[in-house]
């Protein structure tokens, strides 16, 4: 253990500032959505209306932000993972990141399709609506409604893995991976 070879934290480059900003904004939105979503499906209290009034416009916002993030990721690719990372961890890291992106994109789309098939209006705010993207259909609605729950639970589990891995990198491996996203100081890339 004492011979753990190079501690590359100083050399681990950071994500660009715009990527970090989008990541933490999305983290806040997605976590809020998950807790609001699971909470509103389990209450008959006045909280139901409050929660669903946040859930729908926030879901539309997640869809908008994830599209911005995908474009940003293409323009500003993430820094490479540490060179010494074992192959399976590399696969797990990249796989979970793609899964997170896929779920952040698909869940709001399923929600939108679901409301269209119900049919319920898809209200962003006031009289600002999104159009229905599916014709009314109860069978399709029932399937989408279930899919929405299953994917949301999968997103929560993927978040737990992502959060756990971040803590593992930051507290145990100390390889600079957490700092590449979580440090708000001057970019190491600039200092290097």
């Amino acid at each position, binding site marked *: 253990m004492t011979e753990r070879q190079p501690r590359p934290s100083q050399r681990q480059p950071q994500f660009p500032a715009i990527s970090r900003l989008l990541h933490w904004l999305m983290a806040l939105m997605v976590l809020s959505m998950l807790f609001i979503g699971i909470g509103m499906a389990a209450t008959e209290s*006045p909280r139901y209306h409050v929660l669903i009034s946040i859930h729908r416009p926030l879901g539309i916002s997640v869809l908008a932000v994830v599209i911005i993030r995908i474009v940003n990721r293409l323009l500003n690719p993430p820094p490479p993972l540490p060179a010494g990372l074992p192959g399976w961890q590399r696969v797990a890291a990249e796989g979970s990141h793609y899964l997170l992106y896929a779920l952040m994109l698909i869940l709001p789309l399923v929600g939108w399709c679901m409301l269209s098939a119900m049919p319920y209006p898809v209200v962003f705010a006031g009289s600002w609506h999104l159009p229905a993207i599916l014709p009314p259909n109860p*069978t399709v609605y*029932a399937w989408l409604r*279930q899919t929405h729950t299953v994917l949301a639970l999968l997103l929560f589990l993927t978040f737990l893995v992502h959060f756990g891995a971040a*803590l593992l990198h930051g507290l145990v491996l100390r390889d600079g991976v957490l700092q590449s996203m979580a440090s708000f100081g001057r970019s190491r890339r600039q200092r290097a």
Partner: protein
Amino acid sequence: MAPDSKESIEAQPLTPAAMVALLALIGVVLLFVAIVFVYVGGWLSPHRLTQDRMMQAFQELDGAHPGFRRNHAKGMCVSGWFDSSGAAASLSKAAVLKAGERSAVIGRFALAGGMPFQADAPGQVRSMALRFLPAGGGGEWRTAINNIPVFPVNTAQGFYEQLLAARPDPSTGKPDPAAMKAFLVHHPETVRAGALINARVVSSGFADSTFNSLDTFRFVNAAGVSTPVRWAMEPLRPVVTEAAAQAARTDKNYLFDDLIAQIRQQPLKWRLMITVGRPDDPTNDATRPWPVARQRIDAGTLTLDAVSSEDGSGGACLWISYDPMVLPAGIEASDDPILSARSAAYARSLTLRAEEKSQKAPSAVTPQEVRALLAGGKP
């Protein structure tokens, strides 16, 4: 470049004990987040009133009827239009209430209760559910209104307890009178509301019934002024009190069949009457009526000229959830807790019956029955 303090900590190798402690800490943090999630989802709260428990209570009271609405299960579709007078446009900016605006309407008449094959009876609560789609675009409006003057309960918990108290006892097949008595002891508002509900005039049918919003909403105008309102659909035809002979008819669908025959003769009309609340009128208690002296506005005329069974090609209302919280800009929820509870329950009811679609039995009022009556025959 001098390493900062954080980096010098990072450079320190971890002892095995420290590593185990940190891994345990990470485990505890993740477990905590998961437990909070599970708690919010209601899995640790067996007494929280959830949509699942509300649906379960309906099933225990009325039995399982897959594919049907959990409440107001027996119904029939109607359609027509709403012509706004514009008289309420100063209170609400909703497109549906603009002067001269015509909205297409898909509606549903129904009887309260989760029994899709109950026999029509005079005392059973009648409902009118409406979905307005303004011709000029703008927000959709849904409302589900009843022929009682006030709602029997003022919270979701009260509603749930009332369902449980009315459940049939498995040994006798009848409700336990002691359970209802105990419920009423704890719900004096239900006793007061019940007296008003029992004192109402029961008209001869759907066509001459007045349907009330019961819950309070808020109209918001272009200037942002918010006004508490309740509304009612009042029939244009004269109200005829239900005769004893009518209820004695053997036709189990006599209320629906009369409606079909009446629409065959001429379109049926109602006036949308808006009651304007004052600041001290109760907005969060649907068991309490507002003073009769309140200003009332004739906001427009509803015309229903077509009728069809829920089943078959004409059943446009079957898959519409008349969720009272589907509101256009200009109409908002009040602080009435029943509204949130209805919205939650209606959405869950829709989900369940959509899942059960293939198991749904034919509705009580069949396409054949409607066709026969529209042709001038008997059901």
